[in-house]
């Protein structure tokens, strides 16, 4: 599926320590901490600027000037979004795609641009981010800085206690004191306990940092990313490209098959016949042999053309629908196949075609790789989806990410909002389920 953003890439590489131990030292934790540190000053700027722009713009809306001011403010928020997305990419390793641009109708000039910015939902989501992020940044910043610095300070206490008598005039951290008595951490055991508490805090703090960063990540993704609709547009555009490319590739393949197969054979045939024609009177026996050759040739050409035509579009599919066509495919499979088609009516011709080629590709896979004794094909409809399931009792281990067959099939199905799911444990059995949108 076309994704607007990829998976997070901030994972530490093959940690030797278990994750809960390694977290405080992982580069990722420190990057995320930096992100939280930077968050406060930046979000203060965003907040101040955007709230000012919003207030001025909204206040002046009754006059004419307010509207462009508001638009300018929104455009500025979109600018913040660029910075924030870059920051999230650098520190959080979260790749968030650009939101849909505010595009003016061509030829409408400045008013068009103003209107486009105001109308775009993404602009307002950016404004919302600028406003919402400030209180959050305050909380996150305080929590992160307090917990993280305290934790490390306690943990490393034995290392820096020596500086206290020199600079602070005490022997250690004073836990309690009322002028006469003071409880100071200075014995060896106390040092150890303090450092131990610090260690626990460090271990927990790392996860706190990560948790806070996760909220930031969600905020960026939810408010600064492309909307669901925009994602869908990107997806559909790529789908359409795939469909067009696949169709073009199909036609090229057919042309090549014709050229290499039947056409070549017919040329040979024409030559044979040409010779036979010449020889007919002078050497009837040689002519007869050539006619015989030509005869064999033409039978082969017919066979080839038939196979080619069946690969293009099986006539029985148009005539009788999926049930009959799939039975024919099943009968050509090398293993016995049980076909069950349970459809209340025939789907659209294009859907039928895709379903047919899906099953025929899957059964070819079964024939070639599965080493199965039996396979079943089931086709049925649930709501507005057409479901296809092909199972075999073979050796399993089919992997849709390897090999071009299943991967190509998955891509073709994906392009029409279909889904291909393969369940094939080592040793079998294999179940492949394909789902297509129903069109009547």
């Amino acid at each position, binding site marked *: 599926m076309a994704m607007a953003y990829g998976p997070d890439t901030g994972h530490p590489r093959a940690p030797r320590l278990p994750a809960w131990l390694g977290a405080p030292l992982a580069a990722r934790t420190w990057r995320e901490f930096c992100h939280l540190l930077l968050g406060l000053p930046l979000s203060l700027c965003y907040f101040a600027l955007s709230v000012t722009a919003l207030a001025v713009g909204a206040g002046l809306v009754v006059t004419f000037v307010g509207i462009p001011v508001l638009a300018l403010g929104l455009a500025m928020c979109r600018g913040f979004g660029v910075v924030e997305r870059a920051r999230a990419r650098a520190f959080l390793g979260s790749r968030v795609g650009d939101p849909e641009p505010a595009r003016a109708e061509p030829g409408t000039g400045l008013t068009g641009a103003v209107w486009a910015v105001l109308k775009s939902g993404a602009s307002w989501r950016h404004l919302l981010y600028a406003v919402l992020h400030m209180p959050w940044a305050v909380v996150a910043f305080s929590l992160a800085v307090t917990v993280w610095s305290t934790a490390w300070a306690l943990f490393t206490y034995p290392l820096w206690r020596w500086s206290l008598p020199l600079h602070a005039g005490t022997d250690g951290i004073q836990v309690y004191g009322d002028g006469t008595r003071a409880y100071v951490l200075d014995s060896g055991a106390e040092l150890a306990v303090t450092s131990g508490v610090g260690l626990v805090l460090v271990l927990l703090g790392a996860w706190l940092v990560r948790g806070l960063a996760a909220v930031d990540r969600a905020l960026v993704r939810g408010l600064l990313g492309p909307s669901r609709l925009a994602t869908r547009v990107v997806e559909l555009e790529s789908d359409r490209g795939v469909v067009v490319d696949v169709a073009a590739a199909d036609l090229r393949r057919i042309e090549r098959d014709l050229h290499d197969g039947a056409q070549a054979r017919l040329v040979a045939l024409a030559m044979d016949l040409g010779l036979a024609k010449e020889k007919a009177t002078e050497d009837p026996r040689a002519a007869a042999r050539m006619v015989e050759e030509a005869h064999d040739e033409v039978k082969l050409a017919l066979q080839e053309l038939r196979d080619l035509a069946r690969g293009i579009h099986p006539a029985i599919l148009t005539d009788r629908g999926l049930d009959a066509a799939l039975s024919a495919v099943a009968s*050509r499979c090398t293993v016995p196949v049980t076909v069950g088609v349970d459809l209340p009516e025939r789907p659209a011709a294009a859907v039928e075609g895709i379903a047919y080629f899906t099953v025929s590709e899957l059964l070819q896979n079964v024939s070639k790789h599965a080493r199965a004794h039996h396979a079943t094909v089931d086709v049925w409809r649930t709501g507005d989806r057409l479901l296809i399931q092909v199972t075999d009792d073979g050796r399993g281990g089919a992997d849709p990410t390897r090999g071009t067959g299943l991967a190509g099939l998955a891509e073709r199905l994906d392009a029409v909002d279909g889904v291909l799911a393969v369940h094939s444990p080592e040793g079998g059995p294999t179940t492949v389920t394909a789902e297509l949108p129903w069109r009547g």
Partner: protein
Amino acid sequence: MRVVIAEDSVLLREGLTRLLTDRGHEVVAGVGDADALLKTVDALAADGAAPDVVVADVRMPPSHTDEGVRAAVRLRGDHPGVGVLVLSQYVEERYATELLAGSSRGVGYLLKDRVAEVREFVDAVVRVARGGTALDPEVVAQLLGRSRRQDVLAGLTPREREVLGLMAEGRTNSAIARQLVVSDGAVEKHVSNIFLKLGLSPSEGDHRRVLAVLTYLNS
């Protein structure tokens, strides 16, 4: 033998007419679509001059889908005495099942390619006209491959499987013997073995035994 040909390609219609005429058969009518075929046969039958056999293409106008098969099924219902041989660029086991529904008397279903072997093709036409059966080896292979009785079929020797296939195509014992270059007696022995292994009672008449075999494979 009196033949009616239904085929929309003029080229093929002429070719078939020439081929059958050449072999001394009479082509009483050549038509280009299924409606005309049904009307012609009805008219001929009303005059008491029903043809012996109809040779029909599957894909014909107006819709260019499976008119031929539908017309053939109707003819078999309306005129049981008329043999029907269906020709097609493809053979589909589904159409074979439809054509054979109920009876395998006087019915044939062949790939168009088979006309290349002129003698065998004419033999098939004659066989169908006389009430026999002519099924394309491809259909038979599909039926054999698809049959749910794989366990029993696996119990046949390769030779017996071969004989079973030829039997399903509608050939007589002597024709099978010729094809396999063995004696008639050997074929008879194979046939009775096959019937024994499949648990079928031996039927008389070639088309009856074809039917038995096909029913067995389809069940």
